[in-house]
């Protein structure tokens, strides 16, 4: 008998496949395609203290083997989430990660405080959203700033705290070490890469914000390298993501040292792709005689 179970931060996942923040809404739309209970976990759309409308102009732009997005954290706000979305999510029988973003440290603290008294399982602190102009970005770039933010959030937070890292960080390993020292219970990486596109006929950037976040298979080799380096450097569990499209990609991240993986942009390519990935992992384990993912985690 094989088991795909994984435990991180005291939370048990029935399998290592979590759907990534911002690519799965709060699950409602996908629930029409498959039972969400099949998933290891769901990371909510990034939440900010107050409701946000997000960015204007082009929000999604296709590039080679990937997309750029500039959604700008459109979300119902923490209260809206707790009132209207969480009750639905709680009923799905899967681990719930609340992805929390923000512009200021204060905002993070109040948001986390509101979530402390809910049934969410884990807080995923997004210190890296490149589409929020104030603060959001800076937190995820310099290890020192991140250390300060994570320390404060850690002491305010009663849930297991996973910090989501930006690949735009100056030094991803140092960043991971800082967040670990600051008390993170786990790390997830990577968020989107800061990229750019230009409309040559209009002689203007495609995005109103000039830059936007790059995701999808195009970033996988870099994301995998970062997960590998970070997993060698820190002892807390890691959630690996960035361009995962199939079970093979997922296994690569696990072999690079990840406990769980997240499926992001791939959800847009096929609504039930996460189920293909879960089943693919199971089959791979059977074919290769692997009983538990512990056997292959970090073998590389």
């Amino acid at each position, binding site marked *: 008998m094989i088991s795909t179970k994984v435990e991180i931060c005291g939370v048990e996942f029935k399998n290592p496949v979590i759907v990534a923040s*911002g*690519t*799965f*809404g709060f699950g409602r*739309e*996908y629930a*029409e*395609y*498959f*039972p969400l209970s099949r998933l290891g976990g769901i990371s909510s*759309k990034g939440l900010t203290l107050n409701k946000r*409308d*997000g960015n*204007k102009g*082009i*929000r*999604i*732009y*296709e*590039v*080679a*083997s*990937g*997309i750029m*997005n500039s*959604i700008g954290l*459109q979300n119902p706000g923490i209260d809206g989430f707790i009132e209207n979305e969480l009750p639905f999510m709680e009923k799905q029988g899967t681990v719930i990660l609340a992805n929390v973003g923000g512009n200021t440290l204060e905002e993070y603290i109040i948001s986390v405080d509101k979530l402390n008294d809910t049934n969410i399982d884990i807080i995923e602190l997004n210190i890296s959203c490149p589409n929020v102009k104030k603060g959001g970005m800076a937190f995820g770039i310099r290890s020192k700033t991140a250390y300060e933010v994570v320390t404060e959030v850690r002491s305010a937070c009663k849930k297991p705290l996973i910090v989501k890292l930006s690949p735009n960080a100056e030094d991803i390993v140092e960043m991971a070490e800082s967040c670990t020292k600051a008390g993170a219970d786990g790390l997830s990486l990577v968020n989107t890469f800061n990229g750019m596109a230009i409309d040559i006929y209009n002689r203007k950037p495609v995005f109103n914000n000039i830059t936007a976040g790059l995701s*999808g*298979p195009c970033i996988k080799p870099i994301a995998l390298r970062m997960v590998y380096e970070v997993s060698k450097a820190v002892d807390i569990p890691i959630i690996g993501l960035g361009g995962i*499209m199939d079970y093979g990609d997922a296994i690569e991240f696990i072999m690079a040292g990840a406990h769980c993986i997240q499926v992001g*942009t791939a*959800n*847009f*390519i*096929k*609504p*039930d792709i996460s189920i293909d990935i879960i089943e693919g992992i199971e089959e791979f384990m059977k074919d290769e005689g692997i009983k538990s993912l512990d056997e292959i985690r970090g073998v590389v």
Partner: protein
Amino acid sequence: MKRSYRKGIIPSNIQIAPNIYEMKLATCDPGFGFKGKPGQFYMLRGWEAMDPFLARPISISDISNGVITFLYEVRGRGTHIFSKLKEGDVLELLGPLGAGFDLNVKGKVALISGGIGIAPLIYLMKRLGNNMDFYCGFRSVPYYTDRIEGKVNNIYITTEDGSVGHKGFVTELFIPEKYDTVITCGPTPMIKTVVEMCKEKNVPVYVSMENRMACGIGTCLGCAIETTSGMLRVCKEGPVFSGEEVIFDD
């Protein structure tokens, strides 16, 4: 449970005007036929690999006996690949998506299309029982107008170069106050003009909007547009909106 991407097989994919193609798709699943209301659309993938990466949204232009018809214009890489598909080729599609048109409109209706915006209106025309006029504008070569003939009271054809019908834009012929309901699909500047004309005369107007889409099912928020009721998703709450609620930016 809804089904994720299904395979469709092509009985025909023919060019009907410069850059304009009509593709029919039959299901590969026995006992199943494609479904959908006017104004709804499908996400189409004609490639297995990761470049092009996203599926392309295309409106239902007709459905009969479970065979779906898409009318599309070659604009970029994705639609170029579609145009190269041949009889017997298979592609993947997800749908029907979006809310579609309200079929319970009252009174005399004007359908106004610009270019390939004719695609969803053709299907709508077939399903509406109303007394209708059809205004269709083209750049140069009209298409599908033979399918309209006889099904509506009046058909107004315009071309930008004057090669057929009135030379100019459809909005030059259209008189809003003659109608109880106006429904339009086409380039945003045209839609905007139609909406302004209707608003001025207090005529209810519905618009079918386009926007870049990633997921097509409401989760990426990539297709959201500004409306008087906040950001709404073209793929989910739309693609049809009341003309009054859309906030057109300048």
